[in-house]
């Protein structure tokens, strides 16, 4: 007699065939991503550097890797870099998206968007080259930003630079869907600009913010070239060690590290989602 009785909008109820639309993407993920991860896991539990699909299970790589303090310090650097860069990027991107959205002249907004976009038009090697020229001792900013280059701040700067568009655009997409009347209502109820932001805009743009954080974080912790070129060997992230190990043909170790990176990422992504849900008061 009684059907399922979840609350929520009707469109979201019961065997909605539109839910199947997620399938093609999932099928792709299964074929591509799951295969890749399965391969990684299979590599991580062998000692032989062979790439046959099946090999006897051996957990020694795991146990040595997990006990390696250097690996963990690299993991620490990776996560720290990921968090710092995502936070800085989002902190710049958020007001930037608002400025663009509220620009009165369409062409000015378009020009600003192009500016924001431009870093990803330039290959990472060339971009890093640009930063080297700017930040090196004797360069135009070399004195102001003394010793940023080949140290963590330089890497962070260059990463923020290229991740900026990945943060601005999701935020912008979500800003554009907020009707003006919500901010108006808030202003009418006595909310100052800051309060309107904190209590209405921020929660309503939480989905975009979450996307921005997730994109930037994942891109940052897997970034390899920028830390390698601008870190001067001082900034070692997991992606670099993995690359090293691939070159050394130490595939099981590389696989172990990749799996660790992946697991950490999934954990941080869900943390982000949880935090954003707090900000957004669970919108949608």
């Amino acid at each position: 007699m009684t059907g399922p009785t979840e609350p929520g909008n009707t469109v979201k109820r019961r065997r909605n065939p539109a839910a199947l639309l997620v399938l093609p993407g999932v099928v792709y993920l299964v074929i591509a991503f799951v295969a890749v991860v399965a391969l990684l896991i299979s590599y991580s539990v062998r000692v032989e550097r062979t790439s046959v699909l099946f090999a006897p299970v051996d957990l020694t790589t795991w146990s040595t890797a997990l006990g390696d303090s250097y690996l963990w310090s690299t993991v620490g650097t990776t996560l720290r870099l990921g968090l710092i860069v995502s936070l800085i990027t989002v902190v710049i991107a958020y007001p930037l998206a608002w400025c663009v959205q509220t620009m009165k002249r369409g062409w000015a907004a378009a020009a600003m968007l192009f500016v924001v976009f431009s870093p990803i038009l330039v290959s990472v090697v060339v971009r890093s080259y640009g930063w080297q020229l700017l930040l090196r001792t004797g360069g135009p900013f070399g004195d102001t930003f003394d010793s940023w280059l080949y140290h963590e701040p330089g890497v962070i700067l260059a990463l923020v630079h290229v991740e900026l568009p990945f943060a601005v655009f999701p935020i912008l997409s979500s800003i554009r869907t907020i009707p003006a009347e919500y901010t108006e209502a808030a202003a009418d109820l006595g909310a100052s600009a800051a309060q309107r932001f904190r209590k209405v805009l921020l929660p309503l743009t939480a989905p975009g913010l979450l996307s921005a954080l997730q994109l930037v974080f994942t891109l940052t912790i897997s970034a390899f070239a920028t830390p390698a070129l601008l870190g001067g060997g001082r900034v070692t992230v997991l992606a670099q060690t993995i690359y090293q190990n691939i070159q050394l043909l130490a595939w099981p170790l590389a696989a172990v590290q990749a799996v660790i990176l992946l697991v950490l990422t999934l954990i941080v992504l869900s943390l982000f989602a949880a935090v954003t849900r707090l900000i957004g008061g669970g919108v949608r």
Partner: protein
Amino acid sequence: ACGSPGGSSSGASGSTKLTMFHWAGAQATVPEKVGDAFAEANNVDVAYIEGTNADTFPKLVSSVQINKNSPLLNLGFFNGQSFAQGNASDLWEPVPASVTNIDAVNSKYQIADRRGAFMVMDAMGLIYSKKAFKTPPTSWMDLFDSAYRGKVTTWDAPAFSVNALPVIAKLNGGSESDLRPGIDIFSKAAKAGQFHGFIASIDALRQQLNSGEVVIAPGFQGVAQPWIDAGDDIGFVAPKEGLMAFPEGFQLVAGSSEAQLEESAKLLNELFAPENVAEYCNLNGLIPLVEGAELKAELADKETFQLAAVESAIQIDWATLVENIEDATTAWNKDVKANI
């Protein structure tokens, strides 16, 4: 426009397909030229993989491990380190006697079991900024001279073939199997702030030398020569302890079909023709290891391009180094890198 990885099933349908790997940029010119001519003359399909040693070697290894009989490439240009690594995993096919041109290779660089053949040699010495050095540095140990604190750089692990660790270890009582003395010296220097940083690209080295951020680094003659030619205030010097020899050459890859091996061997012979070797060296600032290959005048005059320099060079036992490279990387990371 895209081939499949070098197949083993040749002969069945028409002409043989073979895949040759060579390095990129100016290093690509001669192999492709010779390869094209060879293909034309012998009705063979030659495809090229252009890439770096560091990226292509692992690809090759994994392709063979997936299918022993379907290597990614049949004929490839590798450095000494890869020669040794490949030997360790039976990657190479002996060069048949029919490849007569390799008999002209300098005897010191002849390979006993004919698994591959060295063709040219790059020489590692010291690259320095002429602005900072009135007289060129003289010793490998100048890298650790406190006068240049904060203005020295080298390559990061695992590029031990180029970052001077084996050389420093050997000069200080260590060996390829015991790099500890070298690690200790690097570690001490790192703690003292000797290094400006480690480099990850040749380009960064040039930038830093030109801007004065770095005044001295270990480096290849073949790398420095084009910069010097372009007028940079940069010098290359052979330290008094000797250059480090860095031979490069070709390998035939095991698992290739009979026909492919046969054709590859013929092509290999062409590549080792003295005029081709000479052209290769002239274009890239390398020392020919093949007798009869004459360098162009500008290079032939230079002291560091003399065969004598080669003969007195510090020789690295690549096989031993390769065995230790993983442990060395761990030690390097912990003791050197973590302290810079």
